[in-house]
């Protein structure tokens, strides 16, 4: 069986940054496996600007951002296979993949990095009544059709869900000559960035209706009209608030879920909250030598954070390959409380961690004038005021190794939202 020190599954921004970091930390034998015909992942279809503000201090488009990392991979001569679908990962790190030229291949790795990204929630998961006529697309599918294939899915559009992809597509389809009639959002707040609401909806006079949902879809062969209604605090439609919009297209922008079928069958423990692997400070899963980063780990709002996290995974995988690591290192669990939904990582090893560790998380609701508090057991360690926090934006706390060392008997770290 052919073998590599490190096999990376997925050639999106996460896989690319992980590969570069692993090479720069001394790993020669690296292979990236990508099922698509190009490297770059989902960024190839994200043609709007705004990527890389944090990393490059420039507003790049998705393909421009991806191109920078693809260039780094190529400069380093890191090996990759395109059009290659990974079918299975075993718990002893044998990766089974398939492509046209080689058929089925089996590869032994010393370490594996999971970087498969995420996919969109489908309509099935949303439970809208009515027929299933043509003209219903997920926002990401529509994005791919318009931006990569030059095909316009429709002329008169209603969008359900105000996640960023839906907002971006409202502008994109408007610029391409479609009429976007309304964006309906179930929640009382938008899951998208403010910037996108202003520049994708307000700029074009597209109404955003918060606390609204689709209650009926008309049309047998093709969508003909969509009815939306306001919902109460219980998120049930309020009778008498129905509004009907004629349209030929309904886009669904209802969130993303990490793509973890492979991880599950390998025996990786998956968090029910993030739908991504449970990891420690080195982004290692419960299987030794199997790491995860990017959207497969948890859904990120900014690709800059994906790249940072993936570099850490690459460094840590390199360290594992070169030095192995201490068995049974002491682990401290991070407990999310009071509005913090989860943290990545979930476990910290005070003795093994890097000098500082960025813990990322999301909150469950909109919080104004609150603070993010970090406790080591009952001891308050840090408190940072935040004027506003929303579920759509990732938050973070940085833990210092030196500080953890002052609390050798610590049982838990708690991160919670408190009144400021």
């Amino acid at each position, binding site marked *: 069986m052919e073998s590599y020190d490190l096999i990376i599954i997925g050639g999106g921004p996460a896989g690319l940054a992980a590969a570069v970091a692993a090479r720069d930390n001394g790993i020669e034998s690296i292979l990236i496996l990508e099922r698509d015909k*190009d490297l770059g992942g989902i960024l190839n279809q994200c043609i709007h600007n705004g990527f890389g503000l944090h990393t490059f201090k420039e507003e790049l488009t998705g393909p421009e951002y991806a191109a920078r990392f693809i260039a780094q991979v190529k400069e380093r001569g890191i090996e990759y296979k395109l059009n290659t679908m990974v079918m299975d990962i075993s718990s002893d790190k044998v990766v089974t993949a398939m492509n046209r030229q080689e058929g089925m291949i089996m590869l032994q790795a010393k370490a594996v990095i999971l970087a498969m990204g995420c996919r969109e929630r489908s309509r099935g998961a949303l439970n809208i009544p009515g027929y299933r006529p043509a003209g219903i697309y997920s926002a990401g599918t529509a994005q791919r059709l318009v931006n*990569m294939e030059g095909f316009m899915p429709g002329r008169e559009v209603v969008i359900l869900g105000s996640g960023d992809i839906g907002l971006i597509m409202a502008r994109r389809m408007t610029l391409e000559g479609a009429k976007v009639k309304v964006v309906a959002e179930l929640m009382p707040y938008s899951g998208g960035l*403010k910037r996108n609401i*202003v*520049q994708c909806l307000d700029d074009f006079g597209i109404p955003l209706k918060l606390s609204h949902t689709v209650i009926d879809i008309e049309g047998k062969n093709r969508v003909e009209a969509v009815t939306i209604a306001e919902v109460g605090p219980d998120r049930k439609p309020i009778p008498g608030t129905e509004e009907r919009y004629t349209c030929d297209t309904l886009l669904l922008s209802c969130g993303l879920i990490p793509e973890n079928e492979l991880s599950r069958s390998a025996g990786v423990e998956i968090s029910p909250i993030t739908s991504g692997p449970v990891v420690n400070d080195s982004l290692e899963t419960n299987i030794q030598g199997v790491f995860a980063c990017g959207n497969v780990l948890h859904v990120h709002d900014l690709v800059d954070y994906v790249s940072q996290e993936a570099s850490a995974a690459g460094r840590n995988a390199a360290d594992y390959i070169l030095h192995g690591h201490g068995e049974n290192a002491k682990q401290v669990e991070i407990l999310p409380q009071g509005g913090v939904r989860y943290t990545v990582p979930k476990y910290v090893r005070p003795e093994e961690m890097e000098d500082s560790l960025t813990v990322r998380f999301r909150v469950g609701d909109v919080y104004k004038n609150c603070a993010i508090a970090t406790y080591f057991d009952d001891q308050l360690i840090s408190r940072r005021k935040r004027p506003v926090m929303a579920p759509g934006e990732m938050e973070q706390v940085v833990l210092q190794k030196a500080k953890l060392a002052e609390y050798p008997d610590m049982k838990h770290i708690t991160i919670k939202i408190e009144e400021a």
Partner: protein
Amino acid sequence: MEIRELTCINCPLGCQLKVTMEGKEVVSVEGNTCRRGDTYARKEVTNPTRIVTSTVKVSGGKVPMINVKTQNDVPKDKIFECVRALKGVTIQAPVRIGDVVVANVAGTGVNIVAAGNVDAA
């Protein structure tokens, strides 16, 4: 006196800004929590600009479409004109990031450039 309402986009707080105008002059900005809101409001009511991104067809390339963008921001009211100027434009592969696709688009003085790489098939 005219009053314009805006949402500041510079941070997640999204302050609702109230700009009072006297003709083309800004008299006051209210509702901002910090300086950036004030700067944003003044620019947004006097000279709002945006980067425009789109796609054009590529012939002889590995993929059929390529991402393009205005090299700098253009006046907001020129957005549609910029997109219209791209209708029917086809460029020949190979294309590299930064290649000029349409020069001086819609008389803005700004070029539309490639924002992706497409190799020849």
